[in-house]
């Protein structure tokens, strides 16, 4: 995952990898996708899958279609692409086919309702869209999404230190190739917990039928809580065999509560995205208040330091140490989208 973000700057040498992620099919497919959306990129994986040669090209974007393997969901492929897309030559119009929701990566629902809004404070909003054309559950998938992303010259500097209070909760309960009643059952269970907090709760029941429903049965509940300062927290739970939809719903609801308790201005799953955009901002100080970094974030911060030469200052959000939040601040690298064509 990290190598793709390094793509813009990595040098021309075989770099050994820790474990061998490129022996797996999905990682190779991801690199192929990166090759597709760029011009002049050369990616070679050694026979053993333990070393990789990257000659970075430029991000070209444009209309691209890609079939994702069934071992990982579309979220795995979309996440790095979202990081690259605003800096391409032409606006992205990427069609991905495969599994739309699984238990490892962000589902397309969360990407649409949470990940994309996270780009708005950076000035990437007009024409940013994810259309879910078909849903596809594991193991057979059959989903299809269309990702549209505008291009920007540079990203705005973030200064987001007021977490605010939760003002509304939204959710999508979807069910494909199972009884539509499942989604209603999930909604009811979620409401039983959430109703005590605020009245502004809308949980949509989203049932795809026929061709649009993909090839396998499945259902899931994704929840989003929005604060007064437009900070988003999200959680999700996906159907497992032998588990009642109520239990899935409670699992999603409770992990949302955990997420809310953790607090901060940025959801834990989106720390890396926000931190990357902060590092790419203009040469000013950007600040963001977040919960503690996850393991991914720690690795990501190290990678950012290695590629962009920027390190973050991470201090407790308030001097007295009352809140568990941390304040991440960095001096942007002043990255300008040089791929963009002038006139």
């Amino acid at each position, binding site marked *: *995952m990290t190598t793709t973000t390094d793509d*813009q700057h990595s040098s021309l040498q075989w770099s050994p990898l*820790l*474990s061998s992620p490129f022996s797996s099919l999905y990682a190779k497919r991801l690199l192929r996708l990166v090759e597709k959306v760029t011009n*002049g990129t050369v990616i070679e994986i050694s026979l053993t899958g333990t070393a990789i040669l990257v000659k*970075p090209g*430029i991000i070209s974007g444009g209309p691209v279609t890609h079939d994702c393997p069934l071992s990982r969901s579309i979220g*795995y492929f979309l996440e790095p692409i979202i990081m690259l897309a605003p800096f391409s030559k032409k606006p992205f119009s990427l069609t991905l086919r495969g599994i739309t929701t699984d*238990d*490892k*990566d*962000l589902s397309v629902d969360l990407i649409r309702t949470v990940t994309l809004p996270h780009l708005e404070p950076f000035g990437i909003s007009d024409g940013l869209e994810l259309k879910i054309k078909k849903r596809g559950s594991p193991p057979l998938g059959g989903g299809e999404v269309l990702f549209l992303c505008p291009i920007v010259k540079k990203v705005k*500097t973030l200064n987001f230190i007021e977490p605010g*209070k*939760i*003002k509304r909760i939204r959710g999508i309960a979807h069910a494909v190739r199972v009884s539509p009643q499942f989604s209603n059952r999930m909604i009811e269970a979620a409401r039983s*917990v959430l109703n*005590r*907090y*605020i009245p502004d709760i809308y949980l949509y029941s989203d049932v795809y039928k026929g061709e649009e429903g993909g090839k396998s049965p499945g259902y899931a509940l994704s929840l989003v809580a929005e604060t007064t300062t437009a900070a988003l927290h999200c959680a*999700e739970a996906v159907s497992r065999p032998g588990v009642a939809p109520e239990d899935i719903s409670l*699992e999603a*609801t409770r*992990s949302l*509560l*955990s997420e*809310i*308790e953790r*607090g901060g201005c940025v959801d834990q*799953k989106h720390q890396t995205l926000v931190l990357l955009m902060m590092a790419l901002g203009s*040469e*000013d*100080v950007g600040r963001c208040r977040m919960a503690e*970094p*996850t*393991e*991914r974030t*720690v*690795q990501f911060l*190290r990678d950012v*330091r290695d590629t*962009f*030469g920027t*390190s*973050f*200052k*991470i*201090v407790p959000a308030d*001097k007295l*140490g*009352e809140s*568990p939040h941390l304040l991440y*601040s*960095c*001096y942007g690298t*002043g990255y*300008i989208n*040089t791929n963009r*064509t*002038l006139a």
Partner: protein
Amino acid sequence: MSDDKSSTQKHKVHRRKKAEKKSAFAPRSGRRAERQGRRAAERDQTRLHVPLVDRTPDDIPPPVIVAIVGPPGVGKSTLIKSLVRRYTKQTLNDTRGPVTVVSGKKRRLTFIECNNDLNSMIDIAKVADLVLLMIDGSFGFEMETFEFLNILQVHGFPKVIGILTHLDLIKKSATLRATKKSLKKRFWAEIYQGAKLFYLSGVLNGRYPDSEILNLSRFISVMKFRPLIFRNAHSYLLADRFEDLTPREQIRLSKGKCDRTVTVYGYLRGTNLREGTKVHIPGVGDLGINLITLLGDPCPFPTADSEKRRKLSEKKRLLVHAPMSDVGGVMYDKDAVWVNVPGSFTRGNPDVPQGEGEQMVMDLQGVNETLEHAVTRSQIRLLDSSSKSLSIGPHPSPSRHVLSRARGDGEGQRDNEEDEQEEDPGSASDGDFDDDELSYSEDESAELDITGRSTLRAGHHSADKLTPTREHEGAGIQYAESDSDLGDDGGGGARMHFDSDGGNDIDLQSDTDGRDEEVPKWKSNLLNQASASFKLVRQNKRKDWTTLIYSSSLSPREVVRDEPGTARNEDHKENDQVDDFFTLKATDADADTLDATKEMNPLALHLGKWEGEEALDSIRHLFITGVNDTSVAGSAGEHDGVADDNASDEDEKADSDYDEEFPKGADDSDPRAAILMTKKEALKRKFDEQYDDPESAKQDFYAEAKEAISAQQALNRAEFADVDATTRALVEGYRPGSYVRLELTSVPCEMSEHFDPTRPLVVGGLLPIEEQFGFVQVRIKRHRWHTRTLKTNDPLILSLGWRRFQTVPIYSLDDHSIRMRMLKYTPEHMHCYANFYGPVSAPNTGFCAFNSLEDGAAAFRIAATGVVLDIDRSVNIVKKLKLTGVPYKIFKNTTFVKDMFSSALEVAKFEGANLRTVSGIRGQVKKALPKPDGAFRATFEDKVLMSDLIFLRAWYTIQPRKFYNPVTSLLLSSGSHWTGMRLNGQVRREQGLSAPHQPDSAYKSIERPGRRFNALKVPRKLQAALPYASKPKLMKPQKKATYLQKRAVLLEPEEKKALVVMQQMHALRKDAIMRRREKKQEGAEIRKKRLEKDEHRKSEKKREERKDHMRVAGIKNKRKAEREEGISRKKRKNLHQVIA
């Protein structure tokens, strides 16, 4: 009084007139007033520019670079000397390289003289903030001046002040006035209407008159600078010092050909310079920075303190920093100032008493080789009779020692010595500390032991003893033992230490320091110690994230869950040492967590706790429906209980509770009051906003943008204000305005061999994108003063970004927005596109192009200017390819065509392609035919003729050549010229070749045989069958005379008369016409004569002008020659003395 008087007066008219007195420019009607107001508003708007962020810090800005540019002999050095004298009261003998002076409380100036070389002019144009453009008033503008102005224009156009000199050479005041006027007019046309132009009259005592210089300096001091976009995005410095650090031994061994390690010094400008940035030195190439060291400001601003200490003695009035010019023999080094006192032990100084000791010291300076070397060569015989001279075997140990020391860390010998010095006290103090610490604690001393060593040794401490300080070391980051050492380190700057958020660590350090110094006190003051240790525990619990993430080797999992992994890691390392060939680098589980966005295991989330009502209630305050901020304490109380109930995990919570308890007793009321105050203030502000006019609070776009910029800059300043310098450098880089020393490695040896301080040495930081190579598309326009058109695939030298390089462009034009079509030559008076291969630059970067950079070219050297549009890894430029064929069999709409392709395979490639005949009939390629090779079947919209040619119009993609050749002008000695790839024509001329001639391409007179059309013959049978109207009506010409032809006609007498009258009238008319024509001809003749006369006069004038020009050129040449002999200056001086 006057009122009284007027009231007594009867003439009311007079009073009314007074009231109506008009001011000169006041509007006389409402409409006019409105129009004037609108005009003023519009003018105000034109004055506004897009607000740009100025990255130059306000507190300590870098010196303003004032470049003095002009043709040789115009008085540049004299001007620098005069200006330096004005600011520092010191006279420089020769000014080489940049000269920095303090010009005011908040401004420093760096003067730099630009020599007449085009390379220097380009480099100077890229860094100068203000250009003093010197023009010889007695001679006028020269080509170089215009060239320089055009270079300035494409690289951002800094401020320009014109300076006219040599005005004393013009004797007649009328001529002087006229000259000034004409030069000013030209100058204004070039810069802008009203650009400042100074006049400097003659030279007094080798300087310009003080009053005029004072005037000029005032103008310089009030000058405001708008940030230039390119410089605002790059960090750069103008080197004012250059040192070669390569060990002498290494140079000697490689005969001076080894790559060098050099240091350059200068003030940083532009944006922050980050570690790891690559730099480009124009004229040398891309280089990596080995080390950035922050140095003390050699030319600091006056402070209140320094002003107090200032002596009245004028020599010490203000500083001048000009290391290359050798001001008063002062040299600045990394951390020392060298005073070169000439006349003591310098060689070749006859004033020194030549005693034995002095002689020896001077002789030693002349020794070029080591003693060992000399001994190996010497032939000493022990006894007169011995046949063999003494020889010395290879003596490896000392020389190797020297070598290893020299190569040790790539620094110079001096640095090595420093290192040793640094090490020595370190090891000594180690011992000391051990003694001291014995009473303190066992592990502490061990830890300090580690500190004393170099970074290479990894810390091997166990996990349970982790304190923040120790984590620092584990990361291989050096910490000095004491504060004083830390200070030294800062000076040396070789080591960075990262210490995150000041508070915690500073506390800790001072803590331990205190203990170091006064052990008994610590013992006595147990209570304080206890509370301190309590604090320490607390701080321990709160992780120091910055350190953990950036300067520890812990894996992400260990960082986040700060427990068991460390021990495992420890084992790991030991394993590494034992057997580092086969090691399992990381577990798969680790990689998987990093790979998945969501937590894989829902059980790990501790979701069970949300089953209880209390847990659910505990987060009510996070919703808008929950309790307010003021009662957070209350809810936290509940929180407390919850934490106790399920004390499963939350260490942090317990912490925060501690925190709350701690300050509660001391200042419970204060925060409440403060909160109330802030609330009140917010309410008041809200009320004010609503009560006052809401419109007034609104600002226009310009003011808003400016406010946003200044707010962001205030935040920038505040965020890192309390962080120490080295950490700050790590996070945000080195700020502009600081004086730094850059150590550059693997620099070509020619750079230091041919180093010439008169050529500017610019170190430009590169953005990551600029290190890459690719195809660049630019919009280009040939300069209208350049005499030749530019040709595709001819090499062109570009000055783009920091770089100067030669490349091979392909020119193209957009063809109906469908394709980019190649052009052979650049169009006249029009922009076109060009694509070339080279280092990429961000779009919107300006550039200028040259055919050659050599001096002495007669014509204007700037060939073209333009701007970067696009960068890519491939290009799509096409040129037209027309394939022709001939029909060999024609059916109705189908035709068989041959001679277009040579094989069926080629035809297959072009199936479906559009065809066209010369006569305009359109068609399509269908399928290859088996028989003549390459023949195919084609269909057309009409029947083609056998005589028709058939075209296939295709587009052939061409790629620019991958040619990039940097102009390495600084690697050449001062006199020589850089030569790159030559133009085609140049090569041919030099080799005496003519352009290749293809007989097919030659233009010949076209011979077209006249086309014979056969007469239309309608068969008689058919004719007979036709209706009359369609029958061809063929009649034979009449052969017999007609009736009228046979008879004579006689006129009647009246008819005769009428005829005569008619004839007379015709005769008269003819005559009149004749006469008129004659008259006209006369007039034409006169006109012709007049024109001839005019022509003659004009040519005379032209000849005169030519003569004048040649005379001036002659004067210039003569002056040049004189200058070379060094006569002219003296002469002029004498002249002025006579005048004075």
